[in-house]
């Protein structure tokens, strides 16, 4: 069964084409992550699926209905965490969880929800007194309070400290394994890699790649070699210096040099020989498996090249 079906979805805001023909499906019980640069169209797509916005054209079906005209039953089955939205700051965490929870057919207990999102200690504090990351956890709490079958999370962990992020990952993973379908957007590739069953990469309103994190990583075949640029080499000479040594194009960002290589043994050998000859140290030299981040950078670079 499909929880979400999107075909040839387009959305224009005046002259701006935010979504330019996107199709994908999300199966029931799946965790699906949308990745993409700022302004790629992630929130637009997610808010169309939630029923907050209407598509300019294309077909969208969520839990078997058209979200833009769906009613109360539909909203009872979904949970929404918007990218940004306020909550009544004069109320306490417990009060808002009870208030919002009270309009679903079934809802979780306030203490339980507060515990799940890590707000146990703040449950009787006014929302107005919470920190930014704590407020974001309130958003998450209100997203799950109605026991949704399908949960939309638009950049849910932005602003979280590392331990809060791990905690929410555990929560999302548990929801996922309990059968909740999750539609997630994120800029954190480690988040997508850890949580998502499948990932869609969006760029300028188009889906440029889709698959399981492993699929995508395998597509960028090879191993990533990275090291810090030695002082003796100027950053603008890095590409011309190390490209020939490694036998592939290198990426330079700041002082970090990276390359994705099919046969790392020989390349690393050439690299270290070069360093020994030149008498320089290669700080932080590492050889590792490609991550989703490498895939993402490779994909969006290709996109950028095509545009030029």
């Amino acid at each position, binding site marked *: 069964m499909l929880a979400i079906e999107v075909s040839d979805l387009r959305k224009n805001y005046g002259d701006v084409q935010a979504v330019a023909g996107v199709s994908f499906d999300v199966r029931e019980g799946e965790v699906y992550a949308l990745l993409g640069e700022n302004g790629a169209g992630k929130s637009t797509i997610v808010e169309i699926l939630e029923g907050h916005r209407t598509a300019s054209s294309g077909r969208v079906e969520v839990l078997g209905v058209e979200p833009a005209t769906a009613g109360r039953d539909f909203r009872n089955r979904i949970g929404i965490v*918007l990218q940004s939205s306020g909550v009544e700051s004069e*109320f306490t965490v417990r009060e808002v969880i009870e208030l919002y929870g009270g309009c679903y057919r079934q809802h979780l207990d306030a203490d339980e929800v507060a515990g799940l999102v890590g707000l146990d200690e703040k449950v009787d504090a006014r929302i107005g007194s919470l920190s930014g990351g704590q407020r974001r956890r309130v958003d998450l709490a209100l997203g799950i309070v109605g026991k949704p079958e399908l949960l939309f999370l638009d950049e849910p962990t932005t602003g979280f400290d590392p331990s809060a992020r791990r905690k929410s990952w555990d929560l999302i993973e548990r929801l996922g394994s309990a059968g909740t379908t999750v539609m997630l957007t994120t800029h954190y590739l480690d988040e997508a890699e850890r949580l998502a069953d499948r990932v869609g990469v969006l760029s300028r309103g188009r889906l440029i790649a889709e698959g399981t994190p492993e699929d995508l990583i395998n597509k960028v075949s090879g191993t990533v070699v990275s090291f810090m640029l030695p002082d003796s080499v100027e950053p603008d000479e890095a590409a011309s210096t190390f490209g020939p040594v490694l036998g592939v194009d290198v990426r330079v960002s700041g002082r970090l040099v990276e390359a994705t290589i099919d046969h790392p043994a020989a390349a690393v050998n050439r690299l270290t020989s070069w360093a020994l000859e030149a008498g320089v140290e290669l700080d932080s030299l590492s050889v590792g498996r490609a991550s989703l981040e490498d895939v993402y950078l490779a994909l969006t670079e290709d996109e950028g090249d095509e545009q030029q």
Partner: protein
Amino acid sequence: MPFPSTAKLIAIQTRYQLVSFWRIPVAVFFTLGLPLVMLVLLNALFGSSTTETAAGSWPTSHFYTTGLAAFTAVSATYTNLANMVPIRRDEGVLKRWRGTPLPTWMYVSGFILSAVVIAFIGVVLMLTLGVVAYGLEIDPAKMPAAFVTFVVGVSTFAALGMALASLVKSASSAAAAANATILPLAFVSNVFIQVDDAPRWIEILGSIFPLKPFVEAFQDCFAPFVEAPAFNWGSLAFIAAWGVLGLVVALRKFTWEPSGSAPRGRRARRAAVDA
């Protein structure tokens, strides 16, 4: 599991809006406190005189008490909603509610009913002060008319407040627009001054908007020279017509998204009609 009953949900929503009102001290002060302060000040300055009207005369302190009572009902509905609804919209609270299974009309009902309750409290406070401190007399035979006038008035001004909240998108401009419309109007509408022998244009100004008919109809329910039952059907119909206008505008123009990101037009209108 069924949804909670409509009555229960509306009661919860009304209670929640009331609690939120009490927790915002400026709102409480401007809606309930300020009219009481004005009453005390105006009565200390001019209360001992007599107010002459075309129909008869009565103590100015009674004129002020009843006029400001009606004005309080208007602040609690029109001004209050035109302030709070855009604030909640800008905060993104309205959008959050729209994503829940609570039907949007129930959310709006909670807002309006809470405003009516606040208006009722304000009017009762004002009249009580009038009776206790200024010897205002209450004629039970005219209370049904006072009640009906109150209900028609608050319904209309709540609808007009929602209409303003729908037309003016940002919270700061909505608050300014509410005060800029209601305060000047109060001066030509028998709230602060009896406008019997004012220039013609002032009288016309007062009579095209619903504030003066409402204030007068409400004052008639307490004026000694008006016979019971004191129903002023013409004024009530006129006020209600304004209410219908407000309702139509609110339904057509209401938006749920924060100003700036609101997708205007078809969707917003349909959403409002759904509500």
